[in-house]
């Protein structure tokens, strides 16, 4: 039940899920930071364990080199340009987790985490947000080509067996999980104080349907 996301919004202030979707660096939803932290930790561990291989099931998401852009910046970039609702990141996390449960041989590693993220956030936004950017836009934001992102979208949908519904109960439990991570790891302390964060140096508004707006990132994904 997708509308569960709204139920979650009301109860998870710590994740700042209710922040307005227009980008403002001082109010970057904490969920972004928490999510990138959780994934970073996972990636670091898995990279060591597996020597960088993410497993056969996720091979489509596998890049040649790991991108130069850090996960925190990447997540922030997606949020900033696509204005998707913060809940999309929780749902994206649910998708990635479902994937890992479904295909026990698969691992999130530095070579596939970026593609997994942009694809799952995009699908989450398609499902949650009545207004969302198209794949072409997400491709530019994510640093992959439009055809590749389309391919990854299908790949992920099939891997998930189209199980893209997230009930409010599941949404809640993932929020709690993320909040717990946040407390355990003292993530909140690492959050930049409001107002002195990364300056918004470029566009703050993205005209709809203008794929040119987000500057391309060359991250060799």
């Amino acid at each position: 039940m997708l509308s569960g996301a709204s139920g979650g919004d009301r109860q998870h202030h710590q994740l700042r899920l209710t922040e307005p979707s227009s980008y403002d660096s001082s109010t970057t939803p904490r969920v972004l930071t928490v999510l990138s932290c959780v994934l970073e930790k996972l990636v670091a561990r898995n990279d060591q364990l597996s020597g960088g291989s993410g497993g056969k099931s996720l091979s489509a998401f596998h890049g040649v080199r790991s991108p130069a852009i850090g996960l925190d910046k990447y997540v922030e970039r997606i949020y900033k340009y696509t204005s998707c609702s913060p809940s999309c990141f929780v749902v994206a996390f649910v998708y990635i987790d479902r994937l890992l449960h479904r295909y026990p041989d698969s691992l999130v590693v530095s070579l596939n985490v970026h593609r997994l993220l942009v694809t799952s956030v995009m699908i989450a936004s398609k499902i949650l947000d009545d207004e969302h950017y198209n794949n072409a836009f997400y491709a530019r934001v994510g640093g992959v080509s439009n055809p590749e992102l389309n391919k990854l979208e299908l790949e992920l949908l099939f891997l998930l067996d189209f199980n893209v519904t997230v009930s409010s109960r599941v949404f809640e439990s993932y929020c709690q999980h993320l909040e717990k991570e946040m407390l355990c790891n003292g993530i909140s302390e690492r959050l930049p104080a409001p107002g002195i964060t990364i300056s918004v140096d470029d566009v703050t508004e993205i005209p709809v349907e203008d794929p040119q707006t987000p500057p391309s990132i060359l991250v060799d994904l």
Partner: protein
Amino acid sequence: MAIAAPEQLNITEIPAWGSRSVDCFEKLEQIGEGTYGQVYMAREIKTGEIVALKKIRMDNEREGFPITAIREIKILKKLHHENVIKLKEIVTSTGPEKDEPPAPDGNKYRGGIYMVFEYMDHDLTGLADRPGMRFSVAQIKCYMRQLLTGLHYCHVNQVLHRDIKGSNLLIDNEGNLKLADFGLARSFSSDHNANLTNRVITLWYRPPELLLGTTKYGPAVDMWSVGCIFAELLNGKPVFPGKDEPEQLNKIFDICGTPSEEIWPGVSKIPWYNNFKPSRVIKRRLREHFRHFDRHALDLLDKMLTLDPSQRISAKDALDAEYFWTDPLPCDPKSLPKYESSHEFQTKKKRQQQRQHEENSKRQKQQHNQQHSRLPPIQQSGHAHAQMRVGQNPPAHGGQPQVAGVPGHHYGKPRPSAGPGRYPPGGNPSGNYNHPNRGQGSGGYGTGPCPPQGRAPPYGSSSMPGAAPRGPNYPHGAPPYGTSAAGRGSSNIMSGNRNQQYNWQQ
């Protein structure tokens, strides 16, 4: 939907969908066509089972996998009920298929996904539009009860259908009725706090609260549509055939009365209430208007077509209505007459030939006659792929009559919008069930032009050269037809242009 613990995972089930190729099926014939994609009747080679294959168009690269398809798949995966269409699986095709041109950009994912549905022979609209068709009271009760049972199941599972109409109600030769086309459906929460889009449900079946712009609504929206269908079945023609939103509201108010705070508390707070506020008070006269209906039918209809959604009857309560428990009782679906399949190969062949003719003459006409520009068609749709399809579905209008009444279209009708007015303005897309003149010489499949004496469509006059494009009716640029909508809508267009139409017909 719980988080599966690894040990609970059913590994053997993976990968369930998408692992098989469309080559497991033998396409028998095309039975539908819409912006969504083509629909085929097909046979599973291994089992011999007949299915419907609905192709998901993937040629809009910028949009990726259509959200409507994602929605439909994820919702149908959850729903398992005898009155809800069964999505059997998803299959893919690995390369260009022999019946289509290779993708120019080499995108192998283009057009390669199919939804596999159980095959259904008819849809309610197509069936009702067959010449000489007259439903018995027990039959109407039987269909209505199945419709309500299926809808009740959806609502209990917190799914709103949001596009209930005759062409989305499929009927097989066992008399079973199933809800189909969940491309606009969505889950809802019972607290009704979420903001939902009000641009859903085909105009004629859209409830007053959506027309007035509410974004907080629930299952009652579907019940209004059910009421419209019910009345249409009893009445023999659509009851609120508006050509745009204001007219739609006026038609509703004309019969159901104008809303007020007394009969509909909170109505004045609905976003567009003031824009549409009726200039004069009209008394509800539904019972007088439909006085020829049987008393129990009228009682039920009255409760379905209640303006205030919070007072509108629910599917569950409707099933308990006296109507279903008095003589004649709803009949057993299996006792219903079996209607001839409408998929004869010959019919199709003929259709194709006609398309060819129409395409040619249409092209010529377009060059010479601006009048065509007002026809709704694909060409105006703004869809990236519209042009590509001209060859297959020339018609915008020309070809539609052939499709009219052909079952199966429901699988593949245009999706992007159920925005206002899927139907052409003009009002009366052929709702003439039992119309004595209907289909003469053409059969229910509309292989001929529609009856000249069809009700005069307001815009159908050929004296409207180059009539204004009907922008407002297609807010999302969606072609209004596609399949069944087209079939129905075509009649007035045809009648408006029938000279030309006759020329096309050979």
